[in-house]
């Protein structure tokens, strides 16, 4: 790092503080014994103990995990194949396909929420687990496709060509060459999708029905009904869980598999 203006370094440090201080404060307060306000009244685990015994929160946590697993799983099943199919298409088609794929990730979530709500209500679909899973798939599917395609583009097609030359059927090529080579991207996409689904609030808020409360919905209603230290503990847990998932996804995707060219052997 030569000639880095010191003002830039100071500024960067401040920005990092700005990004992390609120989260640190939140986690710190979750150990505060005080029931009201932010003054420090001693260290305690009692809010976490309370969480662990709150039936409503446990149920919401279970709902969240089930919804995240199902929406991510189905997004993977559809997304991996779609990514492989799209990468083999001609270049011309790609630009508008890209546009269509990125659109669900770009438009404000609230648009997706109200649009889906109207479709479901007008078609008299019962709001609940099913509608939430569909809602989450609308962003999880493009997310999976984008991540898997990025990996595919780095893979040398010679691996597949070699398999075909040796007489492999398309099915063999898919299951014994392409999919194993894509494994890191698939795991990465799965973990990321799981996190995004677990954390989603806006779309869930619009398409959830009674009895399908997820963890973010629970946090939201707790914030609305009044501040309790329990929210801090629950928030801290959620922050740590999503950080772990994202960290894991990052690590998995960094793991190297043979992406370099076959011809170098």
């Amino acid at each position: 790092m030569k000639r880095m203006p010191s003002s830039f370094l100071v500024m960067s440090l401040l920005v990092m503080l700005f990004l992390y201080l609120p989260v640190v404060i939140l986690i710190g307060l979750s150990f505060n014994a005080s029931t009201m306000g932010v003054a420090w009244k001693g260290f305690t685990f009692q809010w976490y103990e309370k969480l662990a015994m709150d039936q409503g929160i446990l149920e919401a946590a279970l709902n969240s995990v089930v919804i995240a697993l199902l929406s991510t799983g189905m997004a993977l099943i559809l997304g991996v194949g779609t990514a492989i199919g799209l990468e083999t298409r001609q270049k011309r088609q790609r630009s508008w396909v890209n546009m269509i794929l990125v659109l669900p990730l770009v438009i404000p979530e609230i648009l997706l929420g109200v649009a889906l709500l109207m479709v479901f209500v007008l078609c008299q679909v019962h709001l609940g687990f099913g509608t939430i899973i569909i809602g989450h798939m609308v962003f999880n599917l493009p997310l999976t496709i984008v991540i898997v395609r990025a990996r595919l583009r780095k893979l040398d097609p010679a691996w597949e060509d070699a398999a075909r030359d040796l007489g492999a059927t398309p099915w063999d090529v898919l299951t014994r060459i392409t999919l194993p080579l894509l494994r890191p991207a698939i795991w990465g996409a799965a973990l990321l999708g799981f996190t995004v689904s677990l954390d989603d609030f806006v779309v869930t808020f619009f398409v959830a029905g009674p009895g399908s409360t997820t963890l973010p919905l629970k946090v939201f209603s707790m914030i609305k009904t009044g501040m309790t230290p329990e929210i801090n503990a629950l928030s801290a847990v959620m922050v740590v869980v999503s950080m772990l998932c994202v960290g894991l996804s990052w690590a998995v995707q960094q793991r190297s598999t043979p992406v370099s060219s076959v011809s170098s052997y």
Partner: protein
Amino acid sequence: MLNHRSDTSFAFPVKVSLLSAGLFLGLFFFLPLILVFGVSLASRGMYGGITWIVTWENYQRVFDPLVGMIFLRSLFLAGLTTLICAVVGFPLAYCLSRASKPWQLILLTLVMIPFWTNFLVRTYAWVLILRADGILNSLLIGVGLLDAPLSLLFTDLSVFVGLVYGYLPFMVLPLVVAIERIPPQLEDAAFDLYASMGGMFRHVLLPLSTPGFLAGGVLVFIPSLGAFITPYLLGGGQNMMLGTFIQQEFLVARDWPFGSALSFGLMGTVLLTWFLLGRMSVEKEPS
């Protein structure tokens, strides 16, 4: 290059997933958006339902001064957020792109983590900081700078802080990508030609970072414009933005046609921004 994947022999499951993914997004993404436009032209029924009588009335209401205010406030807050994110994010992005490899990975991960961390919870953290008996007020009173707590929460300022906090990583990452593409030799060349530090930034670094600013601008401006959680938690009922207003029309007032018109207005603005900034970045792309 690597684009020679033969497109003749697809395995059967690939065909099935291509077809069903297309069908899924068509059914649950594009159809709903088209429906929003359709409903925005309908009228509100007696008890909050939809009456299918075609009318422009919902769009005329968008020009109502009160509604216009909310539109303008959203545009203003989103614009200001984008600007400040660019100003604040650039130094960090620069340090990141010129750092040594191990440091770069660590710092990049640190910027990425909040990006994927629960947005609701991160915004809620600001409630704890800004509310009347929150961290900031307690601190200022404790130090003796204040006698009575300031009302920081439920202001335009708190919404603005929340938006910058929420979307800053979206600006930093594209900027890092853009700055990494600028060869450091260009900076040296500028200094060899007696440019000052400021001159080098103005004439070399900033212009060449334009693609990053444009991409980051799209990624910050669009979600800020349609933000819901931030104005809801930090803005309260008085400081509404488009997101909270749309939610209110749908879930509280139950005026779906008007809510749809607002949504369609938001979508139009979003697509226009995306298109314009996207075009600018194509033109700026070094050939």
